[in-house]
């Protein structure tokens, strides 16, 4: 088979090359990941994407499963099947021609890459102000989209849904992602050192409170995206969460859903 249509999607500084036989699917990816398209001369990993007609096998309601078998990651959900050999740097994705499936595969692959580099994907909005990144973590309904929507013009939105956190020497960087939430707006492809992680709550007044380190680790672990059934990687994620909390201020931000909250984010 000839996978002649290529596109490299670079998130968090990690270019991943996607190859398909279908030019219209390549165009769909180019639109979906606009702002995150890179040169495909030196990709970190390569995936061949086999497009299939939706069927009972590939469009079931099966939950996501991620496990290592014989040196290859096996990624499986109702709407896709994927294999990835991290040592060879190659993989294969089998899915129908919808962007949501490949979006999920990319998220999973990035969680696996980041776990070994002391980083993680986080259920959090993130934004840059005055060259510093602020993370706003919380479950669905906590206010990630709300606080993103109310951001003033001097704020650059990295994402309203999934934040990309990389270790950067003794500190951490938040990178923009194309993983959008309810705001349906792709983040800016830039990065900045993380200044503060806020856990969001909506309430009757704007208030910032300190959070104990143990509580911070507990909340952070609750919001880190991780899918692999792999004890070693679970330990790495735990260590990453502890290291993050040890180096980055973590606070609870209770806010009234209007723009005044941003006067506290500096």
């Amino acid at each position, binding site marked *: 088979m000839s996978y002649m249509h290529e596109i490299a999607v670079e998130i968090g500084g990690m270019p991943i090359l996607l190859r398909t036989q279908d030019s219209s699917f390549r165009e769909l990816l180019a639109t979906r990941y606009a702002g995150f398209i890179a040169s495909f001369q030196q990709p970190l990993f390569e995936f061949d994407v086999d497009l299939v007609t939706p069927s009972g096998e590939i469009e079931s309601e099966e939950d996501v499963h991620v496990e290592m078998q014989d040196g290859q990651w096996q990624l499986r959900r109702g709407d896709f099947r994927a294999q990835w050999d991290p040592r060879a740097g190659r993989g294969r994705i089998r899915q129908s021609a919808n962007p949501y499936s490949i979006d999920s595969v990319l998220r999973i692959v990035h969680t696996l890459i980041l776990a070994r580099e002391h980083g993680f994907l986080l259920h959090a909005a993130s934004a840059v102000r005055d060259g510093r990144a602020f993370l706003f973590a919380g479950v669905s309904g906590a206010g990630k989209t709300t606080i993103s929507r109310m951001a003033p013009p001097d704020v650059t939105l990295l994402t309203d849904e999934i934040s990309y956190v990389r270790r950067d020497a003794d500190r951490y960087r938040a990178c923009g992602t194309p993983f959008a939430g309810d705001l349906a707006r792709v983040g800016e492809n830039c990065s900045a050192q993380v200044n503060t992680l806020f856990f969001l709550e909506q309430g009757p007044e704007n208030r910032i409170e300190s959070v104990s*380190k*143990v509580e911070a680790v*507990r909340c952070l*672990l609750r919001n880190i995206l991780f899918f692999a059934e792999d004890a070693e990687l*679970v330990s790495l994620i*735990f*260590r990453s969460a*502890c*290291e993050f909390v040890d180096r980055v201020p973590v606070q609870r931000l209770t806010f009234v859903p209007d723009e005044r909250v941003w006067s506290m984010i500096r």
Partner: protein
Amino acid sequence: MSEKYIARSTAIAARMLGGEMMVMSAVDSTFFTLNEVATVIWHAADGRTPLSGIVTQVVCEEFDVEPEVARRDAEQFVEDLSRHGILLVSDRPFENSASDPVEAA
């Protein structure tokens, strides 16, 4: 009553942070925070010292607590953590017990 020996599982991650001990199961991601007494028992769980010895020689030495109360609390703690595979329990000493996996922070 027979002696109990306790050892830390190798399938866990543990860390002291902000003066508190956190332990997470690498198998099912269960997360525990240990209080001071539990932390002392955790450190002493070398697989060779019987639980009764840990209570009398370590817990009662470090904390102002009645031996019977300390024993009862220790038994409960061991039962809770062993249920999640975080502590291993045997009626004889472990041959190859785990080294302390705690990373200080």
